[in-house]
Structures are given as C-alpha cells and as structure tokens.
C-alpha cells in the first residue's frame, strides 16, 4: 500500500511501529500528511496554521534518531496541536482576531514534551474562539466542517483537532477540554477523545479559558492511540502548581484487561428526554456489548445533574472573564487604532478583538461575580460543584465506570439557525460533570445515525483511573465496526 493510502486509516501505534521498522521515513510520512492535510483543509478548515518548514526539519531530526536506534514511541510521528496551546515561534491564535498575530515566546509543557520525544508538530488546529463553544463556528478563521458531512458542524471547541483526525489530516491531535471540548467533537467526528483527570497534564502554555476546569486531552482514531499520546504529555510539571504526578507510569498498562468483572453504571439522569432516541439506543446497545464481555451493568443516579450545566457555565464564565481581562491590546494582541485614552483604547481593542460568544461569556462571568449577584450565582455554582463531586464519589464507591451518551444528538447543520443559545448550552449536559468533578472521561464511537453521522458514548472513571478507562474503551472498539469518513 502506498503511504498516501496507508495514512488514510493508519493508527498512531501502527505509524510508530512502521517508522521504527524503517518502512518509511518521518520526512516521507510528514510530507504525505502535510500534502493531504493542506489539500483537505479546503474542505474541513481543520487547521489554522501549518508548521510546514519546521515540521520537515523536525522529521529529519527524528529520522536521524531512528537511524541511531534512539527512537521513542512518538519519534517522527506527526501530531496536530490545538491553537490555544502555546508553540514557541509558531502562531497561536486561540482562533481569535485578538491573537491573530500572536507568536508565543515559549512552548507549552505538552509541546515541549512532544518535542523531547521528537514528535513532529504538523500544525495548529482550528477551534471555537478561546475554546468557548461546541461547534467550532465561533472561530475568527471560519467554521470547521465535519468530515462525515461537510455541511454539519464538527463540534467544539476542539473541532479542528477532531476533524483533522477524522479526515486523516493527522494521525492524532491535542485538544483541550473545559466542559466537553475534546469529547463532544470526538463524538461528532467519529473519533476517540480522552479528557484526563484534572491535573494529570500540565496546563502551562495552555491559554486559559477556565483554569479550574481546563484540561489538555488527546484525540485519535483509537483509545489506545489516545493513551499513547497521553503517556507522552502527562505528569507533574514544576511550571504548573496545579499539576500532579499520575499514580501510573503507563496509561496502557491495562489495555488488554477487558471489562470482565467490572461494574459499569448507567446514571439514569443521562438518558432523559433531552437525549435523542438514536443516541440512547446506540449507548444501550454498547452497554449490552459490555455485558456480553463480562461486565456488570447497573443503574446509578446523579440526582443533582440538573444543576450541572448552569454551574458549569457560571464557574467557567467567571474564570474566563478574569482570564481574558489581560487582553487589552497593550502587552500583546489586537490593539485598536481608535481612541485617545487608555480606557478608550482597551475597550475598543477588546470590542474589536473578541467575537460575540466570547463577549457573552465575559458578560456572564462578570455578572456571576459582581457585587449583589455573587452569592446567587458564582457561590451557588461552587457549592453545586462540591455536591456533584460528592455524588460522583458515591457512585464510584460501587462502580468502576459510568457509561453515558457524549452528546444528546449527532452533529447538526452549520449555521445552527434553529438552535437557541440555551439549547446549545444545554447540550453540554453529558460532558460537563467530568470537568466539574475533575474526573477522566473518554468518548468513543458507538453507532451511526440514519444520516450516517457518528454517535459517541462516554466512559467516566474515578480520578487517575485512566488505565482502566482506556482499557474499557479499547475493549469496546475491538467489538465495534467503525466507518471512516469519506472525503
């Protein structure tokens, strides 16, 4: 098979093995991906920036290491990086006009770790502006399109990373997940997306949306690939005080364990009216598959899930309002030409530099924190967060994993004309709890709707149980026949 053909379906694991086997060089592989990625970008708009010249240089260096027998797992493999993760000397825009010309002076820790393994940074992927959204339509650089249906949304905010993997513009990508931003686009684009335990991956260099919820995650064709990429980026980082050492050194240590004897909980609140029949059916079918593989399926309950979306939006918007205050046009970012005074210039810079959704979140966040509303909103949300954490802890006293839909529906049409803001926000119901509780979660395809659009299911485990989470997703993937996107 030609390299051009091979990359359409190859997993990260396969490419890593073949590079070490010298079936082809990293330069050849990188060039093949660049060619395909650039060509398909006309359709998907998954990338904002290609790292062409540097990528080929990195590939050459990787080839030298492979030749010397010094290759590590990711040496020479092309990886795409979401455009809110800082890359030294490579534009990092957060898909915002505000940072259109922003070139970081340092690498995010995850990028540094990829570089240390001599992985090849292929380019920077498109996203919702500042990671705020679930369609990747709020990007200043235009919407990402779903490889399964170019008239449908990719999901978001890591829509570019999801679409790029689905369209085989790259074998794997980094995303970030604040309320479902890795898992939801993974579900819409029919790939696997892993959000690790909060603190398992350093946030240093991730341009913050909501610091207490943000977590960098991995996106690929399989759960195993997600684990391979996680292994490369996880761990305590002295540059991020909130990062922690993982109790496991290899997230794939249980990959072949299967699910025999595991107790998988189906929280009934995740299967309410808001969830479409097609999605419900597919997830129940997956539960059946797990049962057949030897898992015990039990019904569990998360009584306060009804508060989760509001609590999530209040906390994330409050933190976002504060995190995004630094963008005033003075130190970096878009500076308005209009205005005489500091006050005028920063107001104009922010008003011109931020898109509508970002402005709404800032307004909401400042509302939740402002005098007179703090107790009713922000403080309430913090209490709900604690309660939900407690309820999740309770579930994991009797269950190993919980299984839920990733999204209430499959991907919808671009433009979302019929969708109100509350409808779009409410659709985060299935994913936000993992962020609120800081737990790891993985989304993997479990079916296709009548139109052939992928359906995703999510597994959630207790903190730092990624090895069993990845193993469970992997076990299902082995039983599930995945349909590739046709482009």
């Amino acid at each position, binding site marked *: 098979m030609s390299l051009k053909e091979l990359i359409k379906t190859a997993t990260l694991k396969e490419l890593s093995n073949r590079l070490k086997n010298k079936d082809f060089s990293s330069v050849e592989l990188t060039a093949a991906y660049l060619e395909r990625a650039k060509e398909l970008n006309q359709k998907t708009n998954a990338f904002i920036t290609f790292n062409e010249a540097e990528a080929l240089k990195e590939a050459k260096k990787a080839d030298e290491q492979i030749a010397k027998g010094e290759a590590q797992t990711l040496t020479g493999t092309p990886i795409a990086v979401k455009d809110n993760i800082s890359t030294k000397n490579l534009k990092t825009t957060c898909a915002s006009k505000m940072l259109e010309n922003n070139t970081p002076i340092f690498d995010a820790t995850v990028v540094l770790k990829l570089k240390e393994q001599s992985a090849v940074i292929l380019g920077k992927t498109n996203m919702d502006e500042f990671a705020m959204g679930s369609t990747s339509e709020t990007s200043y650089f235009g919407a990402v399109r779903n490889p399964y249906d170019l008239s449908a949304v990719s999901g978001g905010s890591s829509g570019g990373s999801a679409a790029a993997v689905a369209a085989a513009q790259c074998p794997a990508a980094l995303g970030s997940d604040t309320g479902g931003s890795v898992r939801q686009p993974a579900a819409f684009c029919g790939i696997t997306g892993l959000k690790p335990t909060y603190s398992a991956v350093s946030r240093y260099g991730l341009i913050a949306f909501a610091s207490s919820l943000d977590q960098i995650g991995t996106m690929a064709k399989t759960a195993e690939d997600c684990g391979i990429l996680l292994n490369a980026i996880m761990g305590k980082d002295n540059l991020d005080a909130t990062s922690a050492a993982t109790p496991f050194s290899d997230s794939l240590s249980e990959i072949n364990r299967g699910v025999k004897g595991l107790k998988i909980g189906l929280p009934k609140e995740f299967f309410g009216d808001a969830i479409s029949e097609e999605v419900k059916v597919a997830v129940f079918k997956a539960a059946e598959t797990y049962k057949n593989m030897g898992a015990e399926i039990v019904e569990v309950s998360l009584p306060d899930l009804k508060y989760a979306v509001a609590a999530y939006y209040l906390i994330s918007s409050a933190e976002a309002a504060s995190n995004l*205050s630094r963008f005033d*046009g003075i130190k970096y970012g878009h500076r308005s030409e209009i205005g005489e005074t500091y006050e005028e210039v920063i107001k104009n810079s922010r008003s011109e530099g931020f898109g509508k959704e970002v402005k709404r979140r800032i*307004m*909401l966040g400042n509302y939740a924190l402002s005098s007179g509303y703090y107790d009713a*909103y922000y403080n309430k949300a913090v209490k709900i967060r604690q309660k939900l954490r407690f309820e999740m802890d309770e579930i994991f006293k009797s269950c190993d994993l919980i299984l839920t839909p990733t999204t209430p529906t499959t991907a919808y049409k671009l433009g979302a004309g019929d969708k109100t803001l509350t409808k779009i926000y409410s659709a985060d119901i299935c994913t936000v709890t993992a962020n609120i509780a800081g737990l790891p979660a993985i989304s993997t395809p479990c079916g296709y709707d009548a139109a052939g659009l992928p359906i995703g299911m999510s597994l959630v485990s207790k903190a730092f149980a990624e090895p069993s989470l990845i193993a469970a997703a992997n076990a299902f993937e082995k039983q599930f026949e995945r349909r590739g996107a046709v482009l």
Partner: protein
Amino acid sequence: MFDIKLSAHLAELSKLSFTETELYEVTKEMNEIVSLMDAVSDFTATEALNTAAAVGLDQIRADVKCDSTPRSEILKNAAKSEKNAFAVPKVV
C-alpha cells in the same frame, strides 16, 4: 431581570463597548442565558471548606532566582512599545 442598565454596567466592568443596537441584542441574549443559569436558584447546600487540594510548604517553589526573559522577547508581541517599555495611552 436583566435589563439594559445591567448590561451597560457589565459592559463597563468587562471593558467592552457596544453600540445601542448591540447592547439591546446582547441584553436579549443575556436574558436567555441567565434564565438557564437561574436553574441554580433552588439548590440548597452548605459549603464545607475544601482543603483537599491544599499543598504543603515543602511542595512550593523554593526562593531561588531564575533568569528573567530578554526584554526584546517580553515586548515582542506588543503592538506598540517605546523606550524599552509598553506604550500606554494616557490614563485619565
């Protein structure tokens, strides 16, 4: 009720400027969003001090100097700099 006055106040806190039409539109949107947020109003629970995430003195950064970043790098992404400093329009 989320009215125009509140919108204008929040825009000021947010350092965002809206035209009158925009402000009207954003107020409408905020009303919609806040109605969703009002779901939290009937939640009642007392908050316990969460000390779980706390770290000890021995886990935090030691008081050892590191090199600062070259000034040219610090100023690199600034749209405007003058005399080795960030150029700030006059503060009134």
